[in-house]
């Protein structure tokens, strides 16, 4: 029986199809979840995909946070279910307080779209265990509000606890504090990532296939759980 990974569609989600495809390529069963339904359909993990939920009105992720599906996601995440938020999904995780900090307007004010080199700093989270610590990867990045901010004490705690999951290399595309591209919660089951691993799972369409291990990691972590 293959493991079930839910992918939530909010009004304005863009990358839900690609996320579901990445789940399938990694060997899982992708299950579509709807923002207005708090039924998680017995999934084992959830991906909050990229896009512009609710048009990014108010603040990115601010309205999605109150969608019925998020009540269930927050409850299950707090009980240990793996959750990956990509781009807008990362913003929703921060707005939901599943992850600390916030994502703000890129310091350049430009929307950034590029193949971005990253260093995986944490290879123990539910979504990164198939990487080696220190491994360098290239996956697409595309955001207008991807600048990660948190107060200095929170940043120090994230560093000290090994909760910086990935860091930007070569250049900092959005002014994120300490070049942070992704973080996880204390337990390591909830990961937020600004770049897009789901767009780097096939050589035909991606710059690399470096995104696949995010999705194989979670499937293995579920088997071993």
């Amino acid at each position, binding site marked *: 029986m293959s493991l079930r990974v839910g992918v939530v569609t909010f009004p304005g989600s863009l990358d839900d199809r690609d996320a579901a495809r990445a789940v399938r390529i990694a060997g899982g069963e992708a299950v579509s979840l709807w923002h207005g339904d708090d039924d998680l359909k017995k999934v084992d993990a959830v991906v909050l995909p990229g896009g512009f939920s609710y048009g990014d009105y*108010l*603040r990115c992720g*601010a309205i999605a946070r*109150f969608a019925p599906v998020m009540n269930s996601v927050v409850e299950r995440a707090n009980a240990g279910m793996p959750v990956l938020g990509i781009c807008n999904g990362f913003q929703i995780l*921060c*707005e939901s307080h599943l992850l*600390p*900090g*916030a994502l*703000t*307007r*890129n*310091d*350049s*004010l430009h929307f950034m779209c590029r193949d971005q080199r990253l260093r995986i700093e944490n290879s123990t989270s539910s979504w990164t265990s198939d990487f080696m610590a220190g491994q360098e990867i290239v996956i697409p990045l595309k955001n207008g509000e991807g*600048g990660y*901010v*948190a*107060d200095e004490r929170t940043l120090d705690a994230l560093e000290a606890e090994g909760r910086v999951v990935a860091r930007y290399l070569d250049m900092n595309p959005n*002014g994120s504090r300490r070049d942070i591209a992704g973080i996880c919660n204390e337990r390591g089951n909830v990961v937020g990532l600004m770049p897009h691993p789901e767009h780097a799972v096939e050589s035909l369409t991606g710059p690399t296939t470096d995104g696949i291990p995010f999705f194989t990691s979670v499937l293995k972590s579920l088997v071993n759980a």
Partner: protein
Amino acid sequence: MARVVVDVMLKPEILDPQGRAVAGSLRRLGLTGVTDVRQGKQFIIDLDGVVEGARLELIETLAAELLSNPVIEDYKLQVIEDPA
């Protein structure tokens, strides 16, 4: 009738790239002496009835949890009874 006005501003320590771009524009358009610009949001909420007690508390909560993000923003809330 009552009106609640909520002003939301980025906290002083949070970089405001939009404000910085506006400052650049103001200078280019000839305004001298501009030292800083911060850009915020204002919500004007019109309601029937009076705003007090539990209803005011709910508005405070919503201002803190929906209208602003306490990680990066501060808010100020003002109640105007019988706005003209």
